């Protein structure tokens, strides 16, 4: 499960201690592949992922309309971005949607995941239904909700007592609400899976001990289950943050950044600038800012939570 993603990191790669070992005997040295085995993948990846990443930094100091050749303009793009109110708003909107995502989805998926970790049969059946949104692509999810929330033919038009005039895309507050809700619908099942797996891995002895001490269900949840889910929670939150910062399809399909520029988040603004206004230099600058922001925030989460020190949740168990 996802623990692969994180737990593989420290242990991965040729082990650090390897060089300090005594010279290997013939038997262990024989039959080790050379780096040449890794080379084709590395070259391919460098060409189609690392090179563009370097180029995005270079392009952010250039102007390019997609037709003529790019030209250097120094800090021009960056100073234009600093003065662009839409850009500043887009940063706040991106942060708002990211925070909303974490705040709504985390408690929801913890509760659902812990509940689904039980082994009763009805839970297995319900889990299958919970799982279905995961089978839809982000594009399909957005197209589906755009249709379901259609101002004239959708659900809001049926339930005007709840949704007012039924046009949820017409006002900033409701449009942001729609984006947060669709993200929740789309991603909660995934995070539920993470917590379900983690909750199943909590050692049973902890609950037995708590029961002997007379701790009730809710005390068990807050004092055993939650602390034991700590590592999964950090993994899940990092994924939510990175996912939130790079949200794109949902905005393109559901709101086109509107009404006006009221839901123009940074990733969408980047697309809009580069591929609608053909101002690729500005687009590159926004893209670079996004990568830097995503990396910094992930690092902060890891640092603040002490995840890098890899404190084991198994402490005191064995």
């Amino acid at each position, binding site marked *: 499960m*996802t623990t*692969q*993603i994180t737990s593989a990191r420290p242990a*991965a*790669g*040729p082990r650090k201690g*390897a060089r300090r070992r005594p010279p290997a005997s013939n*038997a*262990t040295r024989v*039959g080790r*592949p*050379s*780096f040449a*085995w*890794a080379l*084709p*993948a590395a070259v*391919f*990846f*460098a060409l*189609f*992922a690392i090179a*563009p*990443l370097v180029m*995005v930094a270079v*392009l952010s100091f250039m102007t390019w309309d997609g037709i003529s050749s790019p030209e250097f303009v120094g800090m021009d793009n960056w100073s234009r971005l600093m003065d662009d109110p839409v850009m500043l708003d887009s940063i706040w909107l991106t942060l708002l949607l990211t925070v909303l995502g974490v705040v709504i989805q985390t408690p929801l998926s913890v509760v659902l995941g*812990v*509940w689904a970790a039980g082994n009763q049969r009805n839970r297995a059946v*319900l889990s299958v*239904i919970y799982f279905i*949104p995961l*089978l839809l*692509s*982000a*594009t*399909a999810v957005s*197209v*589906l909700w*755009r*249709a*379901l929330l259609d101002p*004239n*033919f959708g659900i809001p*038009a*049926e339930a005007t007592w709840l949704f007012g005039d039924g046009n949820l895309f017409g006002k900033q507050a409701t449009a942001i609400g729609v984006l947060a809700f669709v993200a929740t*619908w789309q991603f909660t099942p*995934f995070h539920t*899976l*993470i917590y379900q797996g983690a909750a199943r891995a909590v050692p049973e002895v902890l*609950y037995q001990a708590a029961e002997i001490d007379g701790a009730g*269900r809710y005390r068990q949840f807050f004092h055993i289950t939650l602390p034991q889910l700590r590592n999964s929670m950090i993994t899940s939150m990092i994924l939510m943050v*990175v996912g939130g910062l790079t949200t*794109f399809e949902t905005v393109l399909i559901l709101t086109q950044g509107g009404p006006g520029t009221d839901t123009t988040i940074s990733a969408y603004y980047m*697309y809009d600038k580069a*591929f609608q206004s053909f101002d690729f230099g500005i687009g*590159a600058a926004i*893209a670079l800012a*996004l*990568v830097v922001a995503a*990396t910094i925030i992930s690092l902060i989460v890891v640092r603040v939570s002490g995840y890098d020190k890899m404190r084991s949740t198994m402490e005191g168990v064995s």
Partner: protein
Amino acid sequence: MRRRPNYLAGAGSLVWLFVVGLPLYVMLAATLRTRQDYAENGPVSIPDSFTLDNYTGAFDSGFGQYFLNTLVVTACVIGIVLLLVPPLAYAIVRSRGRTTSAIFRLFLLGLAIPAQAVIVPMFYLISEAGLYDNLLGVILPTAAFCLPMSALILSGAMRDISPELYEAMAMDGASPMRMFFQLVMPLSRGGLSTIVVFSALQAWNGFLFPLVLTQSDSTKVVTLGLYNFQTEHGIDIPGLLGAVVLSMVPILLVYLFARRALVRGLMGVGGK
């Protein structure tokens, strides 16, 4: 485990069932009823007509071609990943060289790169290479962005192979090549199926690369077809939802027949 039923969590799970189930019901019901029925009786009502026109209509508006294109992209991406990742993961797990660990760190760094970040230069690169509006121009970057997670998944699986097996083969004088084909590959089938499903999902659901790197109908993939359908015939909601349902059928089939591999593949997708 004997525990009292947890009413609070149970009630919460029912609410969530409604939140997930209602849209899915509306979607399925809409695709099986006429457009007029949908418009007059509303999305949540029980259909009083039955038709398959919404599904056939999707094919009439070009989805057959889009499915074919997506299939080509998916197959090629899987091919590239299967060609490049097993040797890479093998080197990561077994090689003791500094170059290999540098390469591994490069891929770990790559895990953090979102596609949005490189889309502008990717457009430049692909155009310069003459691959704009060509399926190959979608395949190459999509495959490249599958590599870091696939390498992590597969090297995790390969690390479970016990060192004694390698030593036994080394005693027999086996070359790295022979160990790879006779020991490592057969014993990493689980990991291999996970990276196949993971890459297939990435390719099948990919949107940003096709959106920016293709434009004509002959290179359109399914996700892009959905987006275009929505912008052009947004009012034909049953038809649109028919196309949405069709787009999830292949993944549903994988789900039914290879559930474990799909779940593991999906967990990889979330890592993007």
